[in-house]
């Protein structure tokens, strides 16, 4: 479960995230949408303890991130937008390292590392340095690391970027299974089709403020889009209708 109370982040005068109140339940896949620079990554960084809020609180499974960061972090698995991992370690070594810092028992970790590498089709690259991996492979090794300690909250920042269609499908299936086991999945994405098909609820953030939240149907009703796509809904809510001018320009 993820809960934020009046979560705010300011950089000088600029308000990156403004009094954000979220409540993501266990077993739920929550899509966090917003245009570029809306405050998605800043929010994710505050949820995972990478950034301290200016004010407000973050609770992971009821644990206050500020007061008990170690306990809270032990329950999180993060998949960041850029898969920057130790380039001079092999995939195998990186996962063993993760198992050690999350204190997974040795017998369990050997079995889990092998299993997860096979599942993500990385076994053949397990003993090669990560710096030689393609972007998609690096993304997969980060996913493997995030899942290794079986976190109760999985936070993903643009999880399918750089993945081939087969791997993207695998991730989508995996997230569904994960949520069905009672775990919380919080995902920021630009791919509205993924949000529409996978998420139980979505939240739309713009200029640091949560402007809409609910199931896709609820949002449609609220905006009066009827049978329109999530894309239309998103553009209407975030003022992205300017794109129509761009399309007109391109047509001309």
């Amino acid at each position, binding site marked *: 479960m993820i809960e934020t109370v009046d979560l705010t982040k300011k950089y000088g005068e600029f308000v990156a995230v403004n009094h954000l109140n979220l409540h993501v339940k266990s077993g739920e896949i929550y899509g966090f949408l917003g245009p570029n620079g809306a405050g998605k990554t800043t929010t994710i*960084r505050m949820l*995972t*303890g*990478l*950034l*301290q809020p200016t004010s407000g609180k973050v609770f992971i499974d009821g644990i206050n991130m500020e007061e008990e*960061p*170690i*306990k809270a*972090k*032990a329950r*999180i698995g*993060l998949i*960041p937008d850029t898969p*920057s*991992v*130790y*380039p*001079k*370690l*092999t995939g*195998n*070594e990186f996962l*063993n*390292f*993760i*198992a*050690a*810092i*999350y*204190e997974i*028992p*040795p*017998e369990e*970790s*050997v079995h889990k*590392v092998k299993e997860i590498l096979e599942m993500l089709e990385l076994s053949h690259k397990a*003993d*090669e*340095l990560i*710096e*030689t991996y393609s972007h998609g492979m690096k993304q997969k090794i980060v996913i493997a*690391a995030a899942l290794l300690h079986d976190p109760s909250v999985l936070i993903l920042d643009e999880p399918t970027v750089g993945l081939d269609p087969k791997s993207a499908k695998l991730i989508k299936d995996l997230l569904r299974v994960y949520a069905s086991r009672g775990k919380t999945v919080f995902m920021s994405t630009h791919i509205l089709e993924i949000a529409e098909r996978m998420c139980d609820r979505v939240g739309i953030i713009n200029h640091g403020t949560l402007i809409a939240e609910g199931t896709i149907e609820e949002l449609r009703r609220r905006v009066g889009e009827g049978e329109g796509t999530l894309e239309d809904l998103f553009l209407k809510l975030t003022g992205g209708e300017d794109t129509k001018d761009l399309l007109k320009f391109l047509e001309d």
Partner: protein
Amino acid sequence: MKKEFYIAKALILSRLNSIAKKKKYRKFLIPSILAIIAVVFYFIQKFAIYLFGLRLGFLPNLPLYLLNLAVLAMLIFLFLGSITTILSVFYLSNDITLLLSMPVSGKKVFAGRFLYVIAEDSVYTLVLVFPFFTAFGIMNRLGILYFLLSFLFCIVLPVLPAVFAFLVVMPLANRVSSERLQNITMVISVLLGMAVYFVTQIANPAYGLFKNNHLTGIGTKLLLISKFFPSWAAAEFSAKFLQGSVLAGSGIALLFIGANVLLFYLAYALASKYYIKGLFNARRTERVVVKRKWIVKPGQSPIRALINKDLKMLMRDTKVKVLLFSNLAYLAFFAVAFGFMPSKSTQSGSFSSIVFLIMMYVIVDYFLCGQNTLINLFIDRESIWVILTSPLKSAVFYWSKFIPPFSLGIIVNLLLLVLSLILMGVKASYASIISLPVVIAMPFIFTVTALFIGFQFTNFHTPKDPRKLISGRVVLVLAVVYFVYILIFGIGIPILLSFIAKFKGISFTFLVSLIIFAIVSFGGGFPLVMLSIKKYEGLQITE
């Protein structure tokens, strides 16, 4: 030439923007730079006029020697930085991939980048060398032509080092991957530094002060070679203007400028054939399989896993290996040149043997514990999010960064202690006992200081430039702090202990040494440990 100028302009703008990081400062940037340049120029010119005006009986041509020396010093500076500059600007720059996809030929990309390098380097030559020419011109009332030619001389001065570096890097880039290219060029830069040192000793105009019979036969011949160095051209054309031979002086200056333009065209012609191939090649990734026996093993405690991970990464990073190699080279040089050879003649418990032993530990620990701690800390910079989002206690992370350099310092200190006892025999035993607390205290102090300073600068972004493994600010602050440490621990305290040893005997001096280093370690070191751990707890990743 339009596209070349656009490429150079984009690079210059991006350089200026990187200096003025915030948009609001950008409008003040160029006026500020010009103001600083004008002030520095004025003071250097004033200084040069003062130097030129000195009357040294044994050196009648002092202004010409100084002019020669100024150009030579600038050339050393340009040569030393040339390889890494060419590598980062021509091959590793982020915008190259974009340029390759555009309808721009390789030679235009080359020319644009070359113009940028020359533009940047000529700022240095115009600020630091041109004032010597203007001072010479003002003092001798040489006329506008002299000023114009010396201005052009300074503009083209960076061409030779840039072409040289390009001719070194280009063939390598056509054969090896980016990673290897960076490693090989780092080794070449180290060797180049040694070669430049050697060559400057030959070309040093100061040798002209001595008569040729003071030099060996080879030395005399090598001195003749110095006539071919660009620094000689500066002195020669200025001398001709001084003698009133404007035509001869202009001829030499124009010959020099023309030779540099030709050099550029030579590089341009080669670049049109071979540069693009190297660009593609440098972007190739090599497949590296790691042998099973070297892997990080599963089931370790967090602190062991962290140390294991760091050691593996350090051992596999050739940039780090090159740095360690140069550290060891300096240590060997220090040990042989200033250490055991002269110390063989020192007396037991004497001033010099105590100072020597303590100074040796301080210098060794400066390299082993100071520099290596930072390398070990910043090796995590690219992937720090893994650590910061994990349930790792800050103290565990801290000690994992402390243990390897500290242990290395202790081991090497103990080896040096044994070695000094073997080589210096009984003479060292007295001094060794007094310096014993230093064996443990110094690695501790140097390691905790490096970690403390490292933790103050939380910029954990990936270095794009091979020179910037550790950020410049950290290196600068640490250098100042360590300089003070060397003065206190390497010179001040050993001198104090030597005096005490002279009057109070070995036991008392040992006790004083123990108390001093215990106070420094507990009183100074542990608060730094606590502050660093606290700082880590507040570590954030920001843009």
